[in-house]
């Protein structure tokens, strides 16, 4: 045994040097703003120096006896728990801190002894061996305690407290265009983004009270080089907790094949759920997880972000895969709004994702997010195109009974009424679709400047959609044999179109000019209807010789009869026609009344001499009242009814 190896002082002078060094280390250790790394180094140095001192003091063993005593003490404290059925941290803070102290002490002894282990001192080696055994046992125990604390104090939070689930009307696009209910949709209530914009809602995934406990376990495990074990245990519990939360949200893993084969209604609700889960998982859960990692592992370099990535990666990939599957599915028009929801959700989470996964190892996740966003954008554009194509190609074999508002029209208008909510996104996505339009767009913020709104890409596309719709409606009108009904149909439908535009935010995008033009259009159809139906009827009442006082009785009779027959015919047909809008119906009746009743009254008045004759089948009042029955959508007849 040679006692003169470097680093082991045997002379008085060295003793002083060691003492002085020890003093300096202690003084440095008292400084407050030390980084954790530096503090650890100082602590190590401190224990190392005290070991040297005790060794020098002993001059052959007394120091080791001291060390052994300290180890005995620590061992007792540590071993006591090996047989105790209780968990240490459950038993009270005193127990926990005693235990940690003992572990800390053992760790210091190990470090100190190891510093000296170059000597072939058997006794010393033995103590070191024992100390390392004890330390290993303690570390294994701490790992268990850690898992226990994380599981026991892990907190689940109710997602509904975090976000009001967006209740949006589900409009189901259907090949047969089953009419969607034509009730007003409260646009403002359908999307509640206020919560989202207000930023992170961080919750405690693990009860705040136990964070210091977890931290102290982390500290002692990392100090003793058991960091990897800490990470494995921490990741495993937190990862499983996230997965449980994921399934608690009702989100399940789906293969791409499953998603591609899914029925639309089912897919639609899954897409909704995805949008919702994605926000909660990223904004709330992952933000909170990140905070937990930083709280517990903050001072340990990249460890925190490593753990965070390992915990979250699988779940994030699972969410991303669903998004990919949706984006690659068939681009059906009904998917558009859901796709836009998903797109907007991702777009507004991008910043969070970039922050959460800012480290290099997380760039993989970042990249996948950006790729998916792009994919969803493309898919939304494709669905938008499919929507336009579906509108133009929607064909009918038979005329739509009654000439009322066609379901296609209702469907399309109710659908595009949702578009203004997605204005910014749609503008962004559609910008490149028609370069000519894009030039006019300068600002993404379409405040209140109406003229700007009417020239944004979305406005252009909206108008192009309605013009597709209009030309399809024109095609559909050609299916009616009766020219008057063609006009009723077009009047109804264009009126509906205008009403939908005027009654919603759409008016800002279509502009006054468009509305004026379309108002004139349906009015023109109303006039055309009147001409087509009533001109021939009223022609019976025309005075052929305005100069002479009255016509002959036979002519009068003939005219009267002609009028009655024609009027009854119109009555019979047109009571079955339909003008769903009460105001429009009223207006048309009034203007018809003005034309027909006035002519009839004049006709009868001019031929007063014959009016008591039986040939006057209908009184003026009767004609006037009968007109009120028109366009109610249920066929009636005047022939057999004797209501007067």
């Amino acid at each position, binding site marked *: 045994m040679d006692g003169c190896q470097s680093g082991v002082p045997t002379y008085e002078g060295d003793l002083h040097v060691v003492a002085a060094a020890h003093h300096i280390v202690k003084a440095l250790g008292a400084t407050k703003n030390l980084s954790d790394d530096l503090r650890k180094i100082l602590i190590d140095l401190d224990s190392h120096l005290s070991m040297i001192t005790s060794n020098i003091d002993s001059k052959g063993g007394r120091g080791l006896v001291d060390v052994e005593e300290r180890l005995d003490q620590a061992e007792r404290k540590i071993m006591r728990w090996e047989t105790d059925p209780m968990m240490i941290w459950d038993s009270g803070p005193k127990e926990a801190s005693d235990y940690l102290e003992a572990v800390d002490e053992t760790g210091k002894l190990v470090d100190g002894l190891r510093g000296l282990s170059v000597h072939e001192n058997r006794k010393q080696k033995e103590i070191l061996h024992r100390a390392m055994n004890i330390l290993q046992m303690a570390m*294994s125990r701490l790992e268990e305690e850690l898992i226990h604390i994380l599981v026991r104090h892990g907190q689940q939070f109710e997602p509904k407290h975090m976000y009001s689930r967006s209740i949006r009307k589900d409009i189901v696009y259907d090949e047969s265009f089953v009419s969607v209910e034509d009730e007003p949709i409260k646009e403002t209530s359908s999307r509640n983004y206020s919560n989202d914009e207000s930023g992170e809602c961080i919750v405690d995934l693990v009860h705040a009270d136990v964070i210091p406990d977890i931290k102290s376990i982390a500290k002692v495990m990392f100090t003793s080089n058991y960091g990897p074990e800490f990470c*494995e245990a921490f990741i495993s519990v937190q990862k499983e907790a996230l997965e449980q939360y994921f399934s608690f949200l009702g989100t399940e893993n789906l293969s791409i094949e499953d998603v591609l084969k899914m029925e639309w209604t089912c897919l639609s609700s899954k897409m909704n759920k995805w949008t919702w889960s994605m926000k909660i998982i990223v904004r709330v859960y992952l933000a909170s997880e990140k905070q937990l990692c930083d709280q517990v592992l903050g001072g340990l370099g990249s460890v925190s972000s490593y753990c965070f990535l390992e915990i979250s990666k699988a779940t994030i990939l699972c969410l991303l895969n669903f998004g990919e599957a949706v984006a690659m599915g068939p681009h059906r028009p009904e998917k558009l709004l859901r796709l836009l929801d998903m797109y907007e959700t991702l777009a507004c989470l991008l910043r969070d994702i970039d922050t959460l996964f800012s480290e290099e190892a997380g760039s*993989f996740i970042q990249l996948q997010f950006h790729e998916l966003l792009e994919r969803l954008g493309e898919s939304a554009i494709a669905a938008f195109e499919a929507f336009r194509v579906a509108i133009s190609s929607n064909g009918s074999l038979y005329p739509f009974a009654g000439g009322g508002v066609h379901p296609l029209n209702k469907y399309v208008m109710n659908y595009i009424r949702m578009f203004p909510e997605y204005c910014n996104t749609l503008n962004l996505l559609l910008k490149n679709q028609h370069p000519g339009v894009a030039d006019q767009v300068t600002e993404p913020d379409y405040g209140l400047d109406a003229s700007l709104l009417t020239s944004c890409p979305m406005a252009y596309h909206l108008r192009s959609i309605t013009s597709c719709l209009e030309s399809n409606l024109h095609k559909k009108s050609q299916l009616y044999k009766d020219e008057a009904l063609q006009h009723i149909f077009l009047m109804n439908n264009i009126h509906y179109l205008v009403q939908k535009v005027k009654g919603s935010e759409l008016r800002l995008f279509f502009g006054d000019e468009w509305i004026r033009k379309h108002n004139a259009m349906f009015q023109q159809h109303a006039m055309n209807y009147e001409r087509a139906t009533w001109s021939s009827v009223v022609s019976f009442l025309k005075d052929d010789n305005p100069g002479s006082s009255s016509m002959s009785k036979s002519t009068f009779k003939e005219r009267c009869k002609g009028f009655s027959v024609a009027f009854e015919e119109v009555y019979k047909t047109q009571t079955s026609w339909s003008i769903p809008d009460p105001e429009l119906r009223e207006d048309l009746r009034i203007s018809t009344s003005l034309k027909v009743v006035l002519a009839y009254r004049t006709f009868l008045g001019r031929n007063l001499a014959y009016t008591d004759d039986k040939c006057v089948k209908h009184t003026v009042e009767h004609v006037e009242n009968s007109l009120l029955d028109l366009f109610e959508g249920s066929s009636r007849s005047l022939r057999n009814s004797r209501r007067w």
Partner: protein
Amino acid sequence: MTGTDQSSFLGRISIRRNQVNAMEGYHEQEIEDLELFQKQLSDRFAELLSAPDDAPTEAFLSISWIRKLLDVFLCCETECKAILLMERDAAQISKPPLDRLIPELLERVVKAMDICNAATNGVELVRHCQKLAEITVSALEQKPFGEGQARRAKKALVSLMSAMHVDDKESSVQKTAERSWSFGRRSGNKDRHHGHYRSLSWQVAKHWSASKQIHAMTMNLAAPRGPEASCLPAPVYILSLIIVFVMWVLIAAIPCQERSGLTTHLPINKHVNWTHSLAGIHDKIGEEWKKKEKKGMAGLLYEMQKMEKLGQSLIEFTDSYQFPGEKEKLDEVAAQVAELAEVCRRMDEGLVPLQMLIREAFHRLVRNRTEFLDVLEQGAPVV
């Protein structure tokens, strides 16, 4: 298999198609393209087959070998698509028998995407094994070495072994996933590490099975015969076969959800020149699989197998170790630890790039499908 090879090949097709489109001799040119393509395929797979069984780097089924395989896959995919689609009239693609073959190909593509995702999850499990092996290495490398470190190593090794012999059956996934948290003091803790990789995220979907996917992908996968063998059905078949083959290798090498019965024979026509090496690789892996399947295992990945062997030996050592231990034994262990450390290092280097490559293959399949669908749509007769 270099990049220049590929770009010149693509350039050749592109120029050719532009020049001779719709002219006499076009068909002959196509046959020539196809032959050249098959020759390249043959060379690439021959290179893969010639990888040594046991070598520190580039061994058969090692991480770097699989990365090479995926590179080959990406190249083939690009070239095959070029032969099929470049400068081609969409109407040709929607004529029989392609109107049946292409949709079948696309169904395989969708299944392959799910397999890529399963493999991505599988790589996570391999990475987990790597972390446990790293703990083992650091425990066994400790100086001075004692029982404490032996116990530490053993703890990590036990977790490692159970991670490796993960039961990929769905039943076990379900059971673990539904297990309640309420385990008491210590009793349940032993199971903790199992939960880590039997977790829900390991699943592609409920009831999903990797081997069933492969089986479904091989349906109707038959080499074109007669005149079809030299025209468009040929590249469709080649692309299909390569997709199925590469996915099959991925599943065999990397842990995946439900792999029992993976030995399904792929319908590789051995009478065609270019498939010689492919069939060789298939046979070799099939043999390996049969040998190992019954024992339950994490996959045929070279590094994992190595890790398994070293792990078993080290676990025996830690079991019987008594302080201070025999010098000879300790030296032997030190050599094994060094080997394990080397395996960890290779995993550390290769796994993340491998995962990214698998993801790239996934995205490629997605794009590939979109392109084919677009062409089918263009070529569809107007109703």
